[in-house]
């Protein structure tokens, strides 16, 4: 069925779907009003903010991540990536669910490389039936793959493992920060980071809008293998439709 989709604005939606496991709706029926009903006004306890964060559910979202890896004072690697799910148009103009993964990372080069650092990029679109993969020559390669269960982002963090939670209201923003003991790192991170071994000194900060607790960002700080890592997730609504790239 060809359906008309609605562009949801940033102010209308709490974006990240943390802890939820509901599949993406087949059409965009989540209205501004229904999303807003999740929110309460005048939150002033950090636990309340987190509760909203963890229980929120949205079908369409964009989440991005940037990170910096330092050795001493030197930045030795960095990267940025994003994941986005939306209803877009396929080649025939019909609505289709699309998940777009894209990112780049810059890491130390081997001695066989020209540059001190090498940057790699990726861009992958998943539609219900196909995958579009960016190749080195700039063109997309299409392969037939079934993706019947394109799902929203599931926030993996187990904030109950946080310690020393503090919240700071800064006029228009609420920052909720805390730390995680080394013993609880693995539980806290869930599947957010693939290799959790050796992570120490983990702390985090979540930034909400002060009013209505719109989640704005989540930052992690930790040490591993002699490197200091800072990573920030940002959440937003998708405010423009996605189209599949030309193959």
């Amino acid at each position, binding site marked *: 069925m060809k359906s008309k989709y609605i562009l949801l604005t940033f102010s209308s939606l709490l974006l990240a779907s943390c802890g939820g496991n509901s599949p993406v709706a087949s059409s965009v029926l989540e209205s501004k009003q229904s999303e807003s009903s999740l929110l309460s006004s005048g939150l002033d306890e950090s636990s309340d903010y987190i509760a909203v964060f963890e229980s929120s559910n949205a079908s369409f979202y964009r989440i991005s991540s940037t990170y910096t890896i330092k050795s001493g004072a030197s930045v030795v690697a960095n990267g940025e*990536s994003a994941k986005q799910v939306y209803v877009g148009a396929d080649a025939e103009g019909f609505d289709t669910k699309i998940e777009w993964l894209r990112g780049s990372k810059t890491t130390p080069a081997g001695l066989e490389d020209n540059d001190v650092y090498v940057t790699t990029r990726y861009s992958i679109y998943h539609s219900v039936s196909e995958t579009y993969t960016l190749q080195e020559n700039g063109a997309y390669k299409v392969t037939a793959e079934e993706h019947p269960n394109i799902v929203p982002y599931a926030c993996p963090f187990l904030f109950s493992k946080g310690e020393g939670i503090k919240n700071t209201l800064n006029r228009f923003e609420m920052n909720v920060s805390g730390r995680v003991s080394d013993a609880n790192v693995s539980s806290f991170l869930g599947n957010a980071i693939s290799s959790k071994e050796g992570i120490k000194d983990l702390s985090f900060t979540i930034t909400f809008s002060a009013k209505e607790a719109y989640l704005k960002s989540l930052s992690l700080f930790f040490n591993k293998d002699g490197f200091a890592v800072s990573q920030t997730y940002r959440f937003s609504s998708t405010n423009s439709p996605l189209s599949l790239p030309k193959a």
Partner: protein
Amino acid sequence: MKRKNALFALSSLLLLGGVVASSVSFSPVYAASNSEQDEEFRSRCQSAVDALNLGFDTEKVVADFIVEATGFYGAKFTWTSSNESILSVEQILNENGKALRNRVHVFRPEVDTKVTLTVKAAIANHENAYATRTFLLTVLKAVAIPEDSLPLEINEDFSDYDAGLDLGDYYSYTQSGGEGFLSTIVDSSDENLSNVNDMPSKHVLKVRSSVASSDTRYTRKANVSVALAPKGAYLEGDYLYTGKTNGVGIELLNSSNEIVSGINLSSSGFKQYASGVYTDLQEEAPKEGVWLHFKFLVRPKSGYNVLQVFDRACGSYVTYGTKLGTFIKTSNAGLSSGKKGDVTSFRLVSSKGSAFGYSYLANLKLSLTGSEAPKNYNRSNGIGFIDNYEPEIFAEKSGLESLSSVDPKTFAVHNRFDESKVYAVNSDYTVSTSSRMVSETQIEYTHEFVLKETGEKQSIQQNVFIYEEGDKPSFSAMKFGSLRKDGTDKTSGTITFSGLVSRPGATFHYMLLKKGSAAPTIEQVIAGDKVSGFADAGSATLYSRSFSISSNLVSMSNNYDGYAVLYSEKGNSDLVSEQNISTVININTVDDFYAMATDVNTAYDTFRLTNDLDFSSFYWNLKNDAFEFHGKFDGEGHTISNLAIASATAARVGIFSYCYGDFGNVTFENAKIFGSGNAGIIAGNLYGGTYSDIHVLGGEVSVEPTFTGAGEGYFGAIGGRSRGEGKVGTYSNIEIDDFKIECPKYCGLLTGGFESGVISKLDTIYASGTIDTDGAAVGLIGRNRGDTTVNNAIVNLHIKDAKKEVGTIAGHNKEGGKLAVNNAILDLKIDMITQPGYFGSFIGSFDAASSSYTANNVSYIKEDYSHISESITQDVKSIDAGDAIYKPSTKEAWEQKTFLRDFDVSTSFAYDEEENKPYMRLRNESEIKFVAFDYLAYTENLSETDPSKNHYLLIKAGNVYSYLSSSEKAKVAQAKAKYDACLAAYNEYAKKAGELADGLNLGE
């Protein structure tokens, strides 16, 4: 971006030119005493001056000429004249004040005067060890200029002019030609020509063949209009030649200086201008020393032309060429380019080439009708060809005294005006013989014949090769050819054996074995035994000195070792052999190279250059402009010097017209290509192909000087332009230095353009040179309309003049152009530009709607362009991509602040202290002399605590270590241990950081 190693795993390397970087020291190559050094350098200077050739007749100097400023071994020449009022030397300098050449101005005196020109050669830092050479020149007196009105009207008779017309000084002629000023090729005929023939009149032009790299031309206005000559007009005259000549051309031009019609008369035959080039009209050569009368009709408006030569035996004209009625029509035969129009000038052309003979023209006349019964200026008697003898003969030593075959009285001497007549010895002619021993086994006889009636002489030579009855046969020369296909059979072919033998009656035996088989014995070769690896054997009895024998058919898929021996009852020769005979064709001479470029039968073959080639005295006869090369050429690191190819009319000019194949591992020194468009050293047009390890040092690709139109454009050092939908061209390790491009439009140091659909991959490019054009689209690549990637490039582009669209990488990037540049340093200097806002350090003109570009790690040198305009506002389409940097002031700054840091700087890029910039030079691997110090300079700065700082140092140290000798490696054992530890730490650090980053990206 993967780093390119300096050595690129090649036998000839992309290396430095002996420039010692401040942090790198080389072992001294030369350790002789000062006196020995002086003598060595003096000897080099002597070689340099000995090699000088002024290239013209020093007895008859009438016009300015050019002499070199440098020679072999880098010797610098200083020229002085004994009489500056007659010969004045002027240095020609480049923008940096460096002497390029010297122009010698000629001021003709009132009487013929001898002037001495002295050249002194010296090598830098060894000025005391110089050498000199003198040239004695005779400068002819000035000739009064006639004041006849111009243009020349129809029915004007040249014989009205003074005898000894010196066109080089005649005001109504304009001299032109790329090297025309190098030689005086037209002079008066005032010598005794009794040995040739009588002169028909005193009004004779003598034209010496031009041995310069291009034609020399003399142009005179004319007036053959459709109104005046509706049925055309005739240019006729009498022609005679002596010696082998490149010939004289007569070209009729329209108001755009385009050739409407043209002919060429030479010792090899007649040619007609057709399809943009001269094509042969007859195979039979005209007779030497016989006046022939020619009549050349041109109907300019309709483009008809026809050459007629009077056959005196028949009493009528013979017409040459394709005929349409009595005419040759443009569309059929000749002027396929459609050049028509009134004839407003004609020009005499002294054709370039390797021959040194003379052509004579007499009684030139332009008329509406032409002569029907031309006067015969020839005598009735003259020595013609001589036959009935063998030029090379064997003679047994004991029979030398009675050797009848060297008695010239038995030879047949023909009358050249009537070859059926044979003169009688003593009554008609006398003959005398002299001889000299060339060697113990060779006598050269010279027989001189003198015709009694005219006194004219002719000499011929015979060589007698002496043997004794008991001598064993031997090879005086022996060559194994390559494996060639036999007809259309692709699976089998033959190998040709050729050479010279020492005596008659020997039997030549050969054997071919599969490559690597054990060598046979002489007896096995003679017997044709089927030894292990046997492929073929055969024999032939030889009676003449030279021989050429082909093998039986053998498989084309094998490589062979060849063996040959001469057998006789008196014994055998030594066994000669050549290993690894295959389909690869060896190029040993300039003729071999020319054959590669012109022989369609080998256009798909593989060639290798076996030694250096010098084309200084080779005339490249551009037979056609459609030759396709699909094969492979490996220069094996050799150098090709002074290659010169020129044509004002060919559609494509270069070694090949089209190149589809692979070409590389070669250096071109002072290559000069002149054309009207689509001109490049390797080919006028490149259709894909692989071009690697090509070094172009000096030289130029320019418009042919007599070509005056805009033409198609596309001039570049490697190729005029690249074409072909989907064709992939790769260009790696290309060095273009001190190069010059002068063209109407679309000019690139590398190529004039990459066309739509072409995929071009450039890697490790050094290009430095000047471009001078009145047109647009100028850069490393003139026009980019293809998909082009440039990795690792240094481009120093100096614009002498241009109209617009000047970009260091690409003049323009439009119409689907896709340009990606990674790692580049760009330096753009502009002397003049017509549209001063239309240039960019990266792209001169970019169309964002249709095209794209990326620039990664690109730097360009900030330049002050205020001299080209008071206020420069660059067009929005001009692209400056990358980082603007002030030119680094030191080698270290270049290395550290530009992409050069990523290269094996110590071996790939040298540093020019004088110019303060990196450049590239060739150097053999054996010349790289790194020592322990060079290694330590890098390892001592390795950080043992912070691996992230060691990337550059580890690369450099690794480079240097690979060149250290065993003894030098022993000296740095401790540093090597530190290096190894730091290398391990770096690899661990890079691995860990990479893995960490991998886990932080979403959804990867």
